[in-house]
């Protein structure tokens, strides 16, 4: 028994499995970074799309994940900045946890203020993170960054080759999606949504808004940490500039463009930001301009993003077919 939705999901998964076959390393690399940014953006979606809070700290959480993973997995150095030489499987949970804890620590005071104030606090946090990464070079390698993070080796499966690393990333992505899905459909997820749609009503029904918002923020941060933990072995080079404020902005726009509050919205948004430039090469330097303009138009005319746009179009096409069954009954109530 397969519902239509599951069919689509299966088709999507098969497409993701087949996508890199026969492609050059470059395409495979780009697909990897698409999946990774999708995860970070899905985390941000929890904060923005579900809990309705603007966070500009996602790249800082990616930085926390990436630097933690790098420092744990890099081999010890005789001189300069070295690591502990641990396996990625050890480093990743620590990185995710670190991002989660920092998320809690930042979020706890910051969520007393909401909306644009939270945007400012997180913006400040991102810039401060950048400064610390750049200035404390005894730990982070400073402006030169950290180079040569090993790609994880699982004995029977070494991810050193680009294609293998892609399947590794895909596996992490699938597990991540399942976990996220679990959260979204749990009572927590219901509370997140309730908060976004009507926070006053949610509160009157016993939802502790502040705690739930904080959790949404911290889980979203943890997702950023996971993404960072994958960026380190993918690029094998990290430096503070890769996690500057502009990347937070980019991820925020990914969520909005894809469709904030839709489970797979950020995946589409990340695709637009990371994959589309490939197809729009002819736009040269204008890509970012066109993109920004599209975002504005989309927000004005279709605040629910591309997924929302898809829904509108689908509903238009179906309109004549489906008349709501409860309509006449509803009228007399």
């Amino acid at each position, binding site marked *: 028994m397969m519902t239509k939705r599951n069919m689509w999901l299966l088709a999507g998964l098969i497409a993701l499995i087949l996508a890199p076959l026969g492609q050059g390393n470059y395409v495979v690399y780009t697909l990897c970074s698409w999946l990774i940014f999708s995860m970070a953006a899905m985390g941000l979606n929890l904060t*923005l799309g579900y809990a*309705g809070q*603007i966070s500009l700290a996602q790249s800082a959480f990616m930085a926390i994940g990436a630097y933690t993973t790098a420092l744990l997995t890099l081999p010890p150095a005789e001189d300069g900045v070295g690591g502990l030489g641990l396996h990625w499987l050890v480093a990743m949970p620590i990185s995710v946890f670190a991002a989660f804890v920092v998320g809690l620590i930042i979020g706890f*005071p*910051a969520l*007393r*203020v*909401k*909306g*644009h*104030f939270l*945007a*400012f*606090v997180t*913006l*400040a*946090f991102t*810039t*401060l993170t950048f*400064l610390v990464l*750049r*200035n404390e070079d005894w730990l982070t390698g400073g402006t030169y960054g950290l180079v040569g993070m090993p790609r994880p080796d699982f004995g029977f499966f070494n991810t050193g080759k680009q294609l293998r690393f892609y399947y590794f990333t895909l596996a992490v992505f699938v597990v991540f999606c399942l976990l996220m899905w679990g959260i979204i459909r749990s009572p927590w997820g219901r509370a997140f949504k309730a908060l976004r749609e009507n926070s006053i009503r949610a509160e009157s029904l016993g939802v502790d808004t502040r705690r739930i918002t904080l959790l949404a923020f911290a889980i979203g941060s943890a997702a950023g940490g996971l993404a960072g933990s994958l960026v380190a072995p993918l690029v094998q080079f990290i430096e503070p500039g890769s996690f500057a404020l502009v990347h937070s*902005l980019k991820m*925020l*726009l990914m969520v*909005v463009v894809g469709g904030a509050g839709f489970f797979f919205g950020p995946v589409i948004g990340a695709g637009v930001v990371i994959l589309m430039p490939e197809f729009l090469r002819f736009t040269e*330097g*204008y890509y*970012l*301009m066109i*993109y*920004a*303009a599209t*975002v*504005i138009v989309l*927000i*004005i005319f279709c*605040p629910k993003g591309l997924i929302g746009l898809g829904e509108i179009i689908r509903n238009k096409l179906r309109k004549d077919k489906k008349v709501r069954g409860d309509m006449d009954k509803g009228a007399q109530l």
Partner: protein
Amino acid sequence: MEQFFQVLLSGLATGSIYALAAIGFTLIWQAAQTVNFAQGEFVMLPAFFLLAGMHFLGMPFWMALIFGLLLAVFVLGFLFKRVLVDPLLKHGGLSLIIATMALAILMKESVKEFYSAEAQPFPEIVPNGSWDISGVIVSLTDISHLFISAVIVIGLQLFLNRTRTGRCMQATAQNPGVAEILGVNVKRMVLYTFLINGVLAALASFLITPVYLAKFSNGEYLGLIAFIAAIVGGFNQIRGALAGGLLIGVLDNMTATYITAEYRQAVPLLLLIAVILFRPQGLLGTSEGREA
């Protein structure tokens, strides 16, 4: 001691320009609950209007200045409100914030692609010159920045307090509902606020660009500083934004001189966080009318 006064003077001069951007930011917030994340780019752009006037339309400097000012008022005031803010207000603050973020990118990229990615020299509004007062170099530029900013702020205050339109604008900012009942044309007043923000942004632009040089990325830092100044000073007051701007200008320079250059940028940010957490109404603000 000379160093202290030197840096203080420079800080005040730069801070007075930050204040102009911060005041515009505050006005827009009051009038339309719009947090303009593109405020920095609003200060970046008019300089390019002026340059375009001079280099593409062949205008003399003073004509280009007026041209830039008018174009800024039209684009950053009128068009911004009509095209972006009006349709988005109904979707709520979140959408508007994100839209202004996108707008910031759009403005930066447009200048970069259509004008130049490189910094451009920008004509001095004020002639060069300086006095050496017992070791402190007092430049005409610094003094005139302070002076011009002061004139603008005082003028704005007089306009808001002493004219009928100004008082209507204030009533609108405080309580649009009541203002409407009292017969104020609220929509028009909100529009005026946007136009004034355009003027302030243009003036800040013309003052600061000779120092910063005209570059598409100038707004990134300026915008951030304008927010910080507005929030630190007190979001709902002109004098708050003024004090915030001056404070940040001085603090920034003092930090770089006496404490740390590496973490120079961190100081205003830490101040911002501290203010938001412990005194969200701002140092000079009152807590009324500040529901986040």
